[in-house]
């Protein structure tokens, strides 16, 4: 066979679409270690999100408002259904629950500082309430979790709101795992567990088993806090219509709906990538549930899970949410995965922007660690300032978009202000495909 013939017969090497590089790498890793991958962060694959929606700015049939001159309100009241002291936030963007233990005390303090500067709330997590966070948070939401780590009535009464965590977007139905290497003396003391062991967080609450029980549980918490403190229920997005209806029935003042792009400190990758539904697809069924019960805007809906910019905020509000929550984005604003630590990320076998082994406690940015020398890298004042700046940018962007749609309050955005770029997004968000009046799956088509 001649050289020419050999070249003619040769084909280019081609990788399997099913067994792509990431898949092959994971198979090799599993075979070598004998354990599924546990990591932080959220979903890493592309899925329908707010980029698949567009806002319809005003032209002839709508009348826009003047940017920088005409007012566009952003305030929101959360928890007014039963609680005598609802939260009055300046912006419709909250900081989602992230635990002390997973995060350093400095990071928790920075979250409190940033949220307070922006006039909004931050949230505790597994691990309880730290003095740093309480001290710097004007509004602090106290998570009431299945593990009940760090739970005590004094902190419950010190909270501005209580968030009963039933599910999390990254892992609805799953518990958590804080690996032993992050269990410092202080974390162990707060969680009342031995130092250095893996701390499992239960996937279900220990003293109630269903919606009827939960209603009684909520009333107990109300009794303990003299009906002053709003009670939120946080659910992972999976069956939002039914879960929201039951949450309302159980007596929630507000509902936190967390989509599958939401972050987590540490859980199985297979869980992160394969359980739950994207936030884009979860909001409309949740809003529908509230509307069917006549409770839309009465039981506030906070949505989270992949919120990144003011466009995401405006679109989530247009779909019917009262506020959004941010977690991963807040960590990035503090300094997480910052390229300034690139050399150290490289030493850990990764790169800035990809670091997700938060459970190992080696975070070069000093945010998801309990190692003192790393923790000191994060200045809580400066990081808090960065978070406040970011929150204000999100708000300004959402206001700008709302004004363009002719709205004098961000809550006046509505589904009618949206169209979709793809059929999938149109069906999930229940808005028309751009240039058509077609909503896949809607009655009449």
């Amino acid at each position, binding site marked *: 066979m001649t050289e020419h013939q050999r070249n003619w017969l040769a084909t280019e090497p081609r990788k399997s679409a099913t067994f792509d590089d990431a898949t092959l790498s994971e198979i090799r890793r599993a075979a070598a*270690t*004998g*354990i599924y991958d546990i990591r932080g962060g959220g979903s890493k694959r592309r899925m329908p999100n707010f980029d698949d929606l567009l806002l319809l700015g005003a032209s002839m049939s709508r009348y826009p408002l003047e940017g920088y001159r005409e007012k566009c309100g952003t305030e929101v009241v959360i928890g007014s259904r039963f609680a005598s002291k609802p939260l009055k936030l300046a912006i419709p963007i909250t900081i989602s629950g992230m635990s002390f233990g997973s995060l350093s005390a400095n990071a928790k303090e920075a979250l409190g500082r940033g949220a307070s500067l922006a006039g909004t709330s931050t949230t505790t997590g597994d691990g309880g309430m730290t003095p740093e966070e309480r001290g710097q948070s004007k509004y602090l939401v106290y998570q009431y979790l299945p*593990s*009940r780590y760090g*739970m*005590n*009535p004094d902190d*419950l*009464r010190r909270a501005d709101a209580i968030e009963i965590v039933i599910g999390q977007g990254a892992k609805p139905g799953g518990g958590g*795992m804080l*690996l*032993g290497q992050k269990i410092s003396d202080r974390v162990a003391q707060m969680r*009342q*567990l*031995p130092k250095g*062991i*893996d701390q*499992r967080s*239960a996937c279900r609450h*220990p*003293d*109630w088993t269903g919606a009827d*029980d939960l209603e*009684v*549980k909520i*009333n*107990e918490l109300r*009794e*303990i*806090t*003299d*009906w002053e403190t709003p009670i939120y229920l946080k659910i992972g997005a999976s069956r939002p219509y039914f879960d929201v209806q039951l949450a309302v029935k159980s007596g929630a003042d507000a509902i936190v709906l967390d989509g599958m792009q939401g972050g987590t400190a540490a859980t199985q990758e297979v869980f992160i990538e394969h359980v739950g539904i994207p936030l884009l697809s979860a909001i409309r069924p949740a809003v529908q549930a509230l509307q069917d019960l006549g409770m839309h805007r009465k039981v506030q809906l906070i949505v989270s899970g992949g919120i990144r910019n003011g466009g995401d905020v405006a679109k989530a509000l247009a779909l019917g949410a009262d506020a959004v929550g941010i977690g991963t984005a807040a960590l990035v604003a503090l300094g997480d995965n910052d390229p300034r630590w690139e050399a150290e990320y490289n030493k850990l076998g990764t790169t800035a922007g990809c670091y997700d082994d938060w459970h190992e406690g080696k975070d070069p940015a000093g945010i998801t660690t309990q190692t003192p020398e790393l923790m000191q890298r994060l200045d809580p004042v400066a990081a808090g300032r960065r978070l406040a700046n970011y929150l204000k940018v999100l708000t300004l962007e959402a206001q700008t978009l709302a004004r363009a749609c002719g709205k004098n309050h961000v809550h006046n955005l509505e589904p009618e202000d949206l169209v979709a770029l793809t059929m999938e997004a149109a069906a999930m968000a229940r808005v028309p495909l751009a240039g058509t009046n077609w909503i896949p799956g809607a009655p009449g088509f």
Partner: protein
Amino acid sequence: MPHVDLAETSVRDLNLALHKLGADTNETLWSIANPGGEHSIAVGINAPITVNIAGNVGYFCGGMNKYANIVIDGSAGQGVGENMMSGRIHVKGDASQSAGATGRGGLLLVEGNASARCGISMKGIDIVVKGDIGHLSAFMGQNGRLVVFGEAGEALGDSIYEAHIYVRGPVASLGADCIEKEMRDEHRAELGELLKAAGEGHKVDVAEFRRYGSARKLYNFNIDNAGAY
């Protein structure tokens, strides 16, 4: 002595009155009549008082109790003494499921039986049950002591951390990572103190009890232990 008749006064008003009490209150003895199985009676107390409840109570009675001595002259519904921090709760009848759940301190004494998940996720509470307990009791028990005079249901101490369990009767089955352990002198002394605190020190022989606790094999994940989960 304050007397509250729940046939005439709401649980809300009762709890509001109890929450106003400070550490130096003179109103240290309260009696509650006609509880009628109401939920959330005497929850969130933060003062060293005694509350005598004449009858059966519903869910979460004495929840998150601090300092108070609560006596229930009847049976208790789900989650009695949940997350209590200190003090003492004495149920003279039976207790439903999740008694003393996540409790951090104090003593919960049940004269009768306790149902499933007794002491679930206990974190420092002492629980003494004179009757039997149901399945999954002391599940993920982190700390504290559970004493059972009668029988224990299935999966006792499943995924247990450092809670101590003493059972006099048969155990249907042990949960993941829970094993029977040797009763040494310090355990006999510990059990004796608990029995004394429960008013049973002179009636029961500690030698009749067997001790259970964590094998500590599941404290750090290892794939070779996957079958145990």
